């Protein structure tokens, strides 16, 4: 049996122990502390990387009956719920979803009171100005505000603190084991909130779920979301939700770092390009719909190609049509030259481009709407924005699947309490990505992860405080 060193932790038995250090965890900690409970946050990351995937976010989706802060117009419950149904294909718990949506409006002023500041929707994101409130400085700005607030309230925070085990006796969590500063500690909190994210940074687990191809995926967010707490609880027969084999993946810049590339690695060039695999062959309609509605399927499409890699090819007339990329594109004066620089078979790429060019039809090009500029007699067709790729210089971007989050999580009720094998666990609540699969069973809706995290973080904190 392991020996447990004296703890550097102010109290080994806080009223409320919060596992995780992102948005949901911080909301829970602040709410519980506001109720007068002693609260300890265990953040697995070092201080520089605190905040989980929240540090990469930029907005939260908020219902409102009229202009609210930086939000324009009206975004009502039914429209919001319809948007959710569209992306999830109905894979949601309607009761929890509607409650989340209704509560989202209360979150806005509450967040401001904690020190979170908003800004109008960013240049290039005008389509979200009605539905999504952007954090000034992005998610790390929000996370910093919550940490300041938590510190001011007297929440204890331990960084580099990795929870290894929550001991569940069938009705309640008896103790929590944590590795911190090279030593193991056993804590006996009254109540526990788990808000420690999904498992997308554990490549072995991803490979188990998805197949060996997953090892070639890039992870867009924190390397600290390894799903240790999730797995530990599921192993002890706590109830799960969400497809254990699925993750949300988008096509991102193939040169991005393995972890933590975040927002800047996105590439918006696909609709104006042809996308080929490593053999120089096209494999899908690049112009099927506007990019905000299609970027999410391209992660899977690229994942299905050999070596999980693809290349978007454009010419000089399209380079200014999309958000600038973080790395400059590969550039050449000829298609063959571009193929060589990208490591693609030049002859095959030439043939693909020639065939595509020959299939393009005359017509008016509009970059921002479905312009119907389609190819004729081409498989697969490109159904919008199909213009011949003829004007040098030619540009190429490597694409790889970038994983944003996983869907597998803990089942919770409307009070955020975790469901055990025989009913609710007495002293365990969950919030954020670790339970988001209850509501977001498939697909993704921009800013909705932060809404779920904020709504359920606040509920979990209040409830954990109430029973402490």
């Amino acid at each position, binding site marked *: 049996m392991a020996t447990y060193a004296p703890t550097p932790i102010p109290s080994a038995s806080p009223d409320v122990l919060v596992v995780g250090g992102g948005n949901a965890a911080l909301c829970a900690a602040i709410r519980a502390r506001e109720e007068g409970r002693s609260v300890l946050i265990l953040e697995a990351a070092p201080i*520089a*990387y605190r905040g989980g995937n929240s*540090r*990469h976010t*930029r907005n939260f989706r908020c219902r409102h009956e009229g202009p609210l802060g930086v939000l324009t117009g009206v975004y009502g419950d039914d429209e919001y719920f319809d948007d959710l149904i569209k992306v999830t294909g109905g894979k949601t718990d309607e009761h929890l979803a509607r409650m989340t949506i209704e509560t989202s409006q209360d979150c806005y002023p509450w967040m401001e009171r904690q020190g979170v*500041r908003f*800004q*109008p929707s*960013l*240049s*290039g994101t005008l389509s979200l100005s009605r539905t999504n409130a952007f*954090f*000034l*400085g*992005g*998610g*790390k*700005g929000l996370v*910093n505000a919550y940490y*300041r607030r938590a510190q001011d309230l007297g929440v204890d925070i331990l960084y580099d603190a990795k929870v290894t085990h929550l001991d569940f006796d069938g009705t309640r969590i008896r103790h929590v084991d944590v590795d911190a500063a090279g030593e193991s500690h056993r804590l006996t909190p009254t109540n526990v909130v788990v808000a420690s994210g999904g498992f997308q940074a554990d490549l072995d687990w991803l490979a188990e779920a998805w197949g060996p191809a997953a090892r070639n995926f890039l992870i867009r967010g924190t390397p600290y979301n390894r799903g240790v707490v999730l797995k530990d609880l599921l192993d002890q027969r706590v109830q799960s939700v969400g497809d254990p084999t699925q993750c949300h993946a988008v096509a991102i810049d193939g040169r991005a*770092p393995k972890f*933590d590339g*975040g*927002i*800047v690695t*996105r590439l918006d060039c696909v609709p104006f390009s042809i996308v080929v695999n490593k053999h120089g062959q096209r494999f899908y309609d690049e112009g099927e719909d506007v990019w905000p509605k299609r970027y999410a399927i391209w992660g899977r499409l690229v994942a299905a190609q050999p070596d999980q890699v693809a290349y978007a090819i454009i010419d000089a007339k399209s380079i*200014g049509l999309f*958000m*600038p*990329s*973080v790395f*400059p594109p590969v550039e050449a004066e000829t298609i063959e030259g571009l193929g060589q620089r990208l490591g693609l078979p030049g002859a095959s790429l030439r043939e693909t481009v020639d065939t595509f060019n020959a299939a393009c039809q005359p017509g008016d090009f509009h970059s921002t709407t479905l312009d119907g500029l389609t190819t004729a007699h081409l498989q697969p067709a490109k159904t919008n924005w199909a213009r011949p790729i003829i004007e040098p210089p030619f540009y190429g971007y490597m694409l790889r699947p970038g994983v944003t989050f996983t869907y597998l999580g803990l089942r919770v009720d409307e009070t955020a309490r975790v469901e055990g094998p025989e009913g609710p666990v007495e002293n365990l609540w969950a919030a954020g990505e670790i339970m988001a699969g209850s509501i977001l069973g498939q697909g993704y809706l921009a800013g909705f992860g932060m809404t779920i995290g904020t709504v359920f973080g606040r509920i979990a904190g209040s409830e954990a405080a109430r029973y402490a």
Partner: protein
Amino acid sequence: MLSTSIEEARRQSEICNACRYCEGYCSVFPAIHAQRAFSDGDITQFANLCHNCRGCYYACQYTAPHEFDLNLPQALGNVRQQSWQAFAYPKVLANLFHRHAAATVLIFVVSIIAVFGLAQLLRPQGGAGFYAFISHGVMVSVFAPAFVLPLFAVALAVRAQWADAGRTPLRLSDLIAAGRLAANMKNLSGGHGDGCNYEDGDRFSQARRIAHQLTLWGFLLCFASTSAGTIMHYGFALEAPYSFFSAPKLLGVPGGIMLCAGTLWLTILKTKSDPSLGEQGVRGPQFAFLWLLFAVSATGLALYAATGTAYVEPLLTVHLASVLTLFLLLPYTKMAHGFHRFTALTIEAARQRLSAAG
């Protein structure tokens, strides 16, 4: 050196342009986001727009240890500092005083000796107040060129900056727009009005904004006080010393107090700030400049307090020497930042006006 700094700032600005999370903080980000590719002149323009509020640094997901290693306040700070030296005329003086605190101190000491020597050599026969120690004629013959020549050098530097940024045609409305931003130091508001990040990590505070405006407005009041004295002297033959209820005193006393308090406060704030988040290698000269401003205001106030005592003569010597040093070094110290920032804000206002007009 400048080209290396510009290259690094360009690398970082390109990452910012793909992110855009910081758009609401200040004038820098809308300027970056308006373009896809950045010339050297663009980067220098961003650098002079940056007020070093540091909001973007603390909000950034890509700061070290992340491999992107972003530190935009430092990258732009280095370009900004080096651009002042490149724009200045003559450059050799700028390189000396921007980089070496001791040079400023030396000029101060030399000025004290010079003023003392002049006062001894040309001691007036009569005259009231401080004119009893140094005549009005001597003062004017020293200070008029010491003020006009540096101003001329500043004008050349500002013109060089404007040319470097692409010779954007400017209008009076652009000056007014820039004046509004400078008058309340909008770019230290953090965008949300909570202030900037400086003396206490990622906590927002108005301290630096207020301290800076005390310094700026205090300085302008002191300047107005001197101007009022000049007008009264030449226009109305009203010679110093002036009573308390006169324009020079009513402007100068509050101005002096504000300048004292502002420079003292800025000094304290600067000692608490993280040196790695600003321009590198100039902290010493920046402190020297703050103390010089403090010396100008403190000796000015002391001089007034000492009216009629034996302390007037030494205080007058030190005060005049500090003012002389401040004027002479106008184009070659941190004082240049005011002119270059204001120019950058004006150019930005013009660019926005032109882009809005299509």
